[in-house]
């Protein structure tokens, strides 16, 4: 089977600093991949390289067996990091989510009835239909994330990329977002790339985990990858791995314990 995302010997810079070195990954259709690592480890750069927002300094990325071009981008949905969206922009939730369908409509066309039906269905699916008339600046953190996930889904993508969708949310909202992403992954058979800091509340759903710190330290099934030796390299020592009931749990930077 051909991978939907193939990353070969990728080197990439971000803001003229080397962010990624010699990354090799193959991601197959329907996989739920967690991308982990400390701050500044190149997680976001990796997502942006896959989306073609930054071009590789060396190496190659292939999507669906072809190049990273505008046709391939239309088959991907992206939920960017919090803070990259201008929340003062005067747009309502419904219209903001509709933008996710713009690339499919083609030039000279305005949203049709069927576009509006898709937006309605997706908003209902993420439990955000009641927010449709709200200006985006008036959403809570969890509501906003559900709306941006909806925007990524209305183009009916085959790959969903999420950049720290739970950062800055309270524990309840974090759980809701993770359940939602899990439900989308199961329901639609989407390939999901999920960048996060917090592995424990999502690792039970992940098919594979990638530990990044400029280079790829480990890539595989959570039970094989989440090992104290690997993580101590990635997080420079301050890590413990505790064996939970069904899976390993990671404690990063536990100063009381260390």
């Amino acid at each position, binding site marked *: 089977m051909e991978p939907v995302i193939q990353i070969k010997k990728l080197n990439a810079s971000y*803001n003229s600093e080397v962010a990624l070195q010699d990354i090799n990954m193959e991601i197959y259709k329907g996989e739920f991949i967690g991308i982990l690592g400390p701050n500044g480890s190149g997680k976001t750069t990796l997502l942006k390289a896959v*989306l*073609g*927002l930054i071009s590789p300094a060396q190496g190659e990325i292939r999507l669906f067996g072809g190049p990273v071009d*505008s*046709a391939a*981008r*239309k088959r*991907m*949905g*992206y939920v*960017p990091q919090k803070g*990259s*969206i*201008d929340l003062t*922009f*005067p*747009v*309502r939730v419904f*219209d*903001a989510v509709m*933008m*996710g369908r*713009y*690339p499919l*409509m083609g*030039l*000279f066309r*305005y*949203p049709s009835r069927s576009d509006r039906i898709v937006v309605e269905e997706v908003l209902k699916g993420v439990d955000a239909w009641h927010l449709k008339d709200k*200006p985006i*600046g*008036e959403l809570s953190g969890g509501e906003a994330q559900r709306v941006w996930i909806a*925007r990524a889904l209305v*183009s009916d993508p085959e790959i969903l990329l999420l950049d720290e969708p739970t950062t800055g949310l309270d524990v309840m909202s974090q759980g809701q977002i993770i359940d939602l992403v899990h439900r989308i992954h199961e329901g639609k058979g989407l390939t999901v790339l999920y960048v996060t800091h917090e592995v424990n509340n999502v690792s039970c759903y992940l098919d594979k985990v990638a530990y990044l710190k400029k280079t790829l330290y480990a890539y595989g099934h959570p039970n094989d990858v989440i090992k104290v030796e690997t993580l101590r390299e990635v997080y420079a020592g301050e890590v413990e791995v505790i064996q939970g009931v069904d899976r390993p749990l990671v404690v990063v930077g536990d100063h009381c314990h260390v």
Partner: protein
Amino acid sequence: MSEILQYDFMRHALMAAVLVGGVCSIIGVYVVLKGLSFIGDGVAHASFGGVVLGFLLGINPLITSVLFAFIMVGLVSIFTGKGKMKTDPAIGVFFSFMMALAILFIGLMRSYNAELYSYLFGSIISVTATDLLIMLALGILVLGTVAVFFKELLYVTFDPEMALASGIRAGHFNFLILALLGLTIVISIKSVGMILVLALIVIPASCAHQLTRNIKTMFILSPLFGIAASIGGLCLSYYFDLPSGATIVIILTFIFILTALKRKRR
């Protein structure tokens, strides 16, 4: 009002006011939301340089001002592309360069040209039928382009990175917004002048932004303010013998203060 309409020059001026007020305030929505005021000012100065060159060479100043507006947009795009340089200093550099060229060209003319004055401060009552036709053609071009690419322009204004990530050629459309801004300034510069044109672009959209959190409403309110203030300013300037461009901008500023107060109370 009927008294105003019996003069040819006032009929032309009114049509110019509606046209300029409408086109400026539509493009102004993008300028306000994308934060393009400074580049707008730079383009205004550049197109004035073009106007002076037109007079110097004896060709239609509209042609040379379009050219200079595009050179300004092109220079800034080249120097800021791919994060090579911040936009602000790039505009600062070429803004001054273009103004220096304008002053140089004025120096080379050796004789005083009174018509230049109207491009600097605006003279809506000296707009001729030919001017109007050119303005109308360019105005239709600008508004037509906005209508055709409305959703792409909206997406790159709101979230250029997402637009690019979802397959829209964001770079092309960012340049298109600047090109439309350049054309808008060229259309307006004779009516309101290089110094005041930015006000007609930025203030109506800012008033609309105070009153609504819905982009569609903003595209309706902004031209309403722009056209109303242009007609009102023109009439006042006729009855009280005031400079028209300045009167329009002062009315717009009052509207802005009122909308800001309304928002504060809300």
